[in-house]
């Protein structure tokens, strides 16, 4: 579990337990006079009589001018034999015969009883218990919504470990192995040494060929950003759009800062591949060499569909993956087409002739950590720069959109890890595997490594992470119950129709998926 989540959970536990105290019965005595201004008129009172008798009144009343208490309940004699009981509805007409009339002169003592802490304790147990039971039932009945993730990286942010990046999320088999570059946007400025934590928090086998740091010396606040093709550009003068409009209306506040306050919407209830558009407008300050900055990550839609198709393949999943590995390019293309149906974020720019022209597409997969991408823009001569994003509804969370002036292409320092720790002990074998790359590091669910990098000189750097590898998702026992090769073939051969067919089930799970995913990631205890 992420450290932040653990802190929140601990905080919640402390809040819940703070009021936890043993139940206590508090009895108080009062005079009939005090009953004229009671704290709680709904409280049960016991009226002890001078002859040893007792009224237990569930409802009662006394007026300022009266010296008689009226009430309904039970009357006992001193031997505690019940003499009479009145249980009619008590009305404001206290003179009516259907109530006890107790003259003050007969009263020896009025007693009130209060049970302390019991209700609070029951409430605390319910606050914790109801969500626990609901989440558990949901996970048991729909385990594909839980327990998933990708190779995950943490770095220090304000001195504490924070989730920063995920590696090669689309590399689901050896043939899909590829490198992945992620900006460590929130990482602390460090000197001499940089530390990263590498974890496997899913039921997956991660095969990691290398985890290199790409470092750029800091220069007067100018940030370096990477394009999808792995080119790096130093930037200056970053400006926010003057407007951002999606189908729900203005979304400017959600995309102005890289702050994990993201713009996203639900998937279409009838077609998971239905597209939507976001329109952006920037002031054109007449600069050349501009780039669009976009911070984004995926929702759990891809993960859900991937698990669903795996479940349909069932016992054949292994042999289907082997087919792909043995060069069945047709099958590989089918898998690729399925993911292409969801697609990336297409970026269009409005040219001087008002026509929209597609300039790039961002398709980095993964639901864990947002990454910032740089999209180089062609030169525009209009006063306003209009950009359109076209993306699948419910597939992307967009955190940040801005325009930057590019001041020049940069080449990073590549830094290999210098030390690898596993469970606080030096692991030279893991280090050798990550440095040489020909014999990759293999991690299993719950594995955690700390990687340390020596930095070249006495200055601060901005960092990117370059990883290469692939991962193998584990088939879950209960997914096998859904094995259905016809449905698997339907998904691969008719991806468009499959997106429509799968929509209702996904929409049922969508509202809870994100919460459950983050609460259920697997970390070895």
């Amino acid at each position: 579990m992420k450290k932040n989540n653990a802190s929140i959970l601990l905080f919640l536990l402390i809040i819940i337990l703070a009021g936890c105290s043993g139940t206590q019965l508090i009895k108080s005595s009062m005079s009939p006079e005090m009953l004229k201004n009671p704290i709680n008129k709904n409280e049960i009172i016991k009226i002890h009589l001078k002859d040893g008798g007792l009224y237990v009144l569930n409802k009662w009343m006394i007026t300022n001018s009266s010296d008689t208490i009226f009430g309904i309940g039970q009357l006992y004699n001193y031997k505690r034999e019940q003499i009479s009981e009145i249980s009619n509805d008590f009305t404001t007409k206290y003179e009516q015969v259907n109530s006890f009339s107790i003259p003050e002169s007969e009263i020896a003592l009025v007693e009130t009883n209060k049970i302390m802490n019991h209700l609070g304790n029951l409430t605390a147990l319910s606050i914790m218990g109801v969500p626990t039971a609901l989440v558990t039932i949901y996970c048991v009945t729909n385990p594909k919504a839980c327990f998933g993730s990708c190779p995950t990286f943490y770095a220090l942010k304000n001195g504490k470990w924070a989730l920063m990046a995920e590696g090669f999320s689309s590399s689901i088999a050896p043939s899909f192995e590829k490198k992945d570059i992620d900006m460590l946007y929130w990482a602390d400025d460090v000197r001499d040494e940089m530390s990263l934590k590498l974890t496997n928090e899913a039921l997956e086998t991660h095969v990691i060929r290398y985890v290199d740091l790409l470092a750029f010396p800091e220069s007067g606040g100018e940030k370096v950003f990477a394009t999808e093709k792995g080119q790096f550009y130093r930037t200056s003068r970053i400006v926010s759009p003057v407007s951002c409009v999606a189908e729900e209306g203005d979304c400017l506040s959600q995309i102005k800062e890289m702050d994990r306050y993201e713009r996203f919407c639900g998937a279409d209830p009838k077609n998971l591949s239905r597209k939507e558009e976001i329109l952006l407008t920037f002031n054109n300050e007449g600069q050349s060499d501009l780039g669009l900055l976009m911070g984004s990550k995926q929702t759990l839609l891809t993960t859900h569909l991937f698990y669903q198709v795996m479940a349909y393949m069932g016992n054949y999943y292994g042999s289907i993956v082997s087919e792909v590995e043995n060069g069945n390019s047709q099958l590989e293309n089918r898998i690729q087409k399925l993911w292409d149906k969801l697609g990336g974020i297409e970026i269009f720019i409005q040219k001087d002739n008002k026509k929209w022209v597609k300039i790039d597409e961002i398709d980095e997969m993964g639901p864990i950590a947002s990454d910032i991408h740089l999209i180089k823009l062609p030169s525009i001569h209009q006063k306003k720069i209009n950009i359109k994003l076209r993306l699948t509804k419910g597939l992307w969370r967009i955190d940040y959109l801005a325009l930057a002036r590019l001041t020049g292409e940069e080449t990073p320092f590549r830094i290999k890890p210098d030390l690898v720790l596993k469970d606080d002990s030096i692991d030279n074998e893991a280090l050798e595997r990550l440095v040489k790359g020909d014999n990759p590091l293999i991690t299993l669910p719950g594995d955690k490594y700390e990687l340390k990098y020596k930095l070249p000189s006495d200055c601060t750097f901005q960092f990117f992470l370059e990883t290469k590898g692939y991962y193998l998702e584990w088939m879950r026992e209960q997914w096998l119950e859904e094995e259905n090769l016809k449905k698997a073939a339907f998904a691969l051969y008719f991806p468009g129709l499959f997106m429509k067919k799968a929509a209702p089930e996904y929409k049922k799970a969508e509202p809870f998926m994100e919460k459950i995913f983050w609460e259920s990631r697997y970390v070895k205890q």
Partner: protein
Amino acid sequence: MSSNKMMMALLIAGILMTSCKTMKTIPDSYNFTVKESRGNPYGCWTVLNINSLQNGLVHDTIAGEFVCMDADTIYLLVGDRIVRPIYSGSVLNAQLYTHKNQAGTYFTITSLFLVPNLIGSVVVAGEFAGDILLLGIPMAVVGITHIIIESSAHRNILNYPGKNILDEFKMFARFPAGKPSNIDLNQLMLKPRGK
């Protein structure tokens, strides 16, 4: 057994152990439920340990319903039509049980909320068993804490001379205003079972 399963097994064992609290035997009819305690017309069950010869040689334990208390005497109903007056100066220690300890209730509630985790891990979840159990840990922690506090705080017991003075027992008597005049205490009956 995986570490997850082991941890959950330990938690469940913890819950079970905390519910195995020892309690001095009091009659069922005087072990008032929370709801009952607010409108119960009887006095609370009390156990007195007294110095019966006033010279410190013989100790005696007397248990019964707390009937009333006057300046120097406590009256306990120890059986039907048997009231024992006890000189309060001879009381060495006393316990009065106000209501039923709620640890058992909290144990039941916690267990019910954890049923989905237990069933899920055993029947349905396959290799997720450990993870399904882990989801129940926060609930188990909260539940165990409530059970432990309820069991150990003993806030349902007045204790003399530990945390209470004898005068505080008075409000829990059948006649908290003192012995009514003109009544025969030897006509009093204990609370019948099941009433």
